[in-house]
């Protein structure tokens, strides 16, 4: 029997990226071979406005330690207005999570254009670092979903 096995904490991070800007920015980060931790897994959505607060809560429930939403810069949305709606929804949701005492750093919105591969990588590095410092998500997790 093993006791006191100290495992290095590896955060689970879900990144929602809009198809037109941020997902392309993530691709560009890859094309330019810019490293960021493998803890970040990207889910492609057509637009940041497709991200339902339920998805974010679902991710936390299933054990995510951080959720980041990336979209086109305000004014550059492929659908003209999607990211403006996303901005309002996420602002209110994040404010509510903070109000409930859930660490506000666990959620983030970042605008990344298709040309900003470097920004994408830098953002992910920074986000992973923040979440690693915060440690495991305990305040918004579903114990039944833990192994």
């Amino acid at each position: 029997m093993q006791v006191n096995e100290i495992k290095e904490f590896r955060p689970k991070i879900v990144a929602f990226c809009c198809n037109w800007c941020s997902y392309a920015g993530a691709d560009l980060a890859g094309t330019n071979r810019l490293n960021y931790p493998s803890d970040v897994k990207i889910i492609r959505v057509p637009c940041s406005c497709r991200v339902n607060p339920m998805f974010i809560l679902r991710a936390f429930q299933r054990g995510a330690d951080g959720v980041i939403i990336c979209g086109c810069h305000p004014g550059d949305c492929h659908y003209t207005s999607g990211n403006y709606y996303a901005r309002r929804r996420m602002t209110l949701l994040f404010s509510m999570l903070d109000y409930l005492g859930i660490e506000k750093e666990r959620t983030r919105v970042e605008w990344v254009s298709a040309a900003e591969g470097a920004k994408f990588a830098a953002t992910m590095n920074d986000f992973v670092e923040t979440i690693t410092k915060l440690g495991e998500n305990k305040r918004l997790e579903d114990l039944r979903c833990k192994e």
Partner: protein
Amino acid sequence: MQKIGVFVCWCGSNIAATVDVSAVSEALSHEPGVVYATNYQYMCSEAGQNTIKDAIKKYGLTGIVICSCSPRMHEATFRKTAAAAGLNPYMVEIANIREQCSWIHKDMATATEKAIILGKAAIAKVHLNAPLTASQSPVVKRALVIGGGIAGIQTALDIADAGFEVDIVEKSPTIGGKMSQLDKTFPTLDCAACILTPKMVDVAQHEKIKIYSYSEVEAVKGFVGNFEVTIRKKARYVNENVCTGCGLCTEKCPQKNVPNEFNLGMDKRRAIYIPFAQAVPKVATIDANYCMKLKTGKCGLCEKICTAGAIDYSQKDQLIEQKYGAIVVATGFNPIKLDNFEEYSYSQSPDVVTSLEFERITNAAGPTSGQLLRPSDGKHPHTIVFVQCVGSRDTSGCGKPYCSKICCMYTAKHAMLTREKYPDTDVYVFYIDVRTPGKNFDEFYRRAAEEYGVHYIKGMVGKVAPKADGKLMVQASDLISNEQLHIDADMVVLATAIEPDKSARPLATMLTASMDTNDFFTEAHPKLRPVESPTAGIFLSGTCQGPKDIPETVSQAGAAAAKVIGLLAKDTLTANPCVAHSDEMMCNGCSSCEKVCPYGAITYVDKEFRMPDRTVAIRRVAVVNEAVCQGCGACTVACPSGAMDLKGFSNSQIMAEVDAICK
């Protein structure tokens, strides 16, 4: 349960060097539903694609997952591959293990681990994929251009030249728009009429163009490729097909006291009139507000003298229904009302005029036959003050917050022409900034100052007051010499801000096309799709989209025409099948989705439902027009009940991906 095939690509060494591809295909082969998993050097090659096709047939695959490069690269390729093997192309999911895995990680163990998770997420998603079929809709090969100014004229000519039918709807009795009122055009000083009127004639004679003059759009239904438009053809009391445009009636009509809108009310016309000599169509129109026959039943002179027998006092408004594949908005602009700018005494002195009025005063066909004369006493003015930015760049609420863009140049033109024709005239131009980007624009402005001796003064006019001697006292600041100037002027010309025509707002509502807070139409993308409205099938031409000069308007008009031609050249439109869909059993009818849809793709209908208790209930439910929806998904989150979902990116699909990643 789906039967899923997994295909892991090496991409040569691009993936295989950092991801253990066989470990990935091995791990994924144990996922539920996976019946086949393999890896290959180049999946996108013909041999690779054949592997996929063979596996689809051999294992009867219902879904496939390709672990390869970004879907932005080869999603379309693999969809075609699937379709070729008889699998619905939307049963393909790509796990991006190159750009988002092998290329960013150095350690093989972590990269392989991540590739497996990305593969699992794609498998989880494809489990919930459903075959999607893109809807097809036919395209009506006819375009509608709303507005017959230079923007509408150019767009119509370009579309018609490509062989498509075009209708122009113009609310006034003639096409030509604002450009027909101009005298000269900057920076080349061509005569506006000389370059515009031939184009108007081209329009009239073009066999593919039909002009609905003195008409307005009454209602718009339908969507891209299939608009149904109702046009109200207002009664002009003259049979257009019979009238020869001889103009006899316009000379004999006894009602002589009608303000002439073509000359901005600075002279009079008759109750029956042709706006100007080169009007198209050249037919007379009776102004029902002034015609004595129509008002009192007495007169009827025009009918008596018309040799063609074109007068018809019994004419009624006519409603015309027509179908169009595309609609171009070219509703243009107007100078703003100056009610909020009393300091310039526009309403108190006839010698304070707007630039458009000045344009008419200097025009040979204008009220003074081209002589520069003061409206008040008909004398030649010796000192003229031009004031720039009247109502433009104004955030106080009195004017418009934007720069009207054309004023710097036309003021330079007016100042220059005045000095050229009347060298004894002192001309002052008060400016905040002189903005002259454009080919040969700055040279033009500098010529006005350097060669023609126009006094350009950096500062603003604070007050214009009529004096007892008939002059105008102009009080202004000169910011460079830091003094306040008092000029006794004979005339003051206000470079009045321009605003979109008032008809644009209700039109935008009919078209479900979006507008900004200034009532300019918004474009589908400010940089990449500047001549299209976000609403599919609606295109923008000219100043309805933002302030523009003539060369810019004409180039935008041509661009809009090219877009229309591209649309009308298609026989059918294939819609993106990844569109929103409303579950009407769950829809509340609350209109939240309708409000956030940038394309006006959602409408509401009252529908009968059979309830479990065998009664029939009428409920208001959302209906998505699949031809118009672009699939952004804004509505899916706005919907409180979750009735609205997005095909291809459904709630359950995205959640399945989340689950797989967080496992």
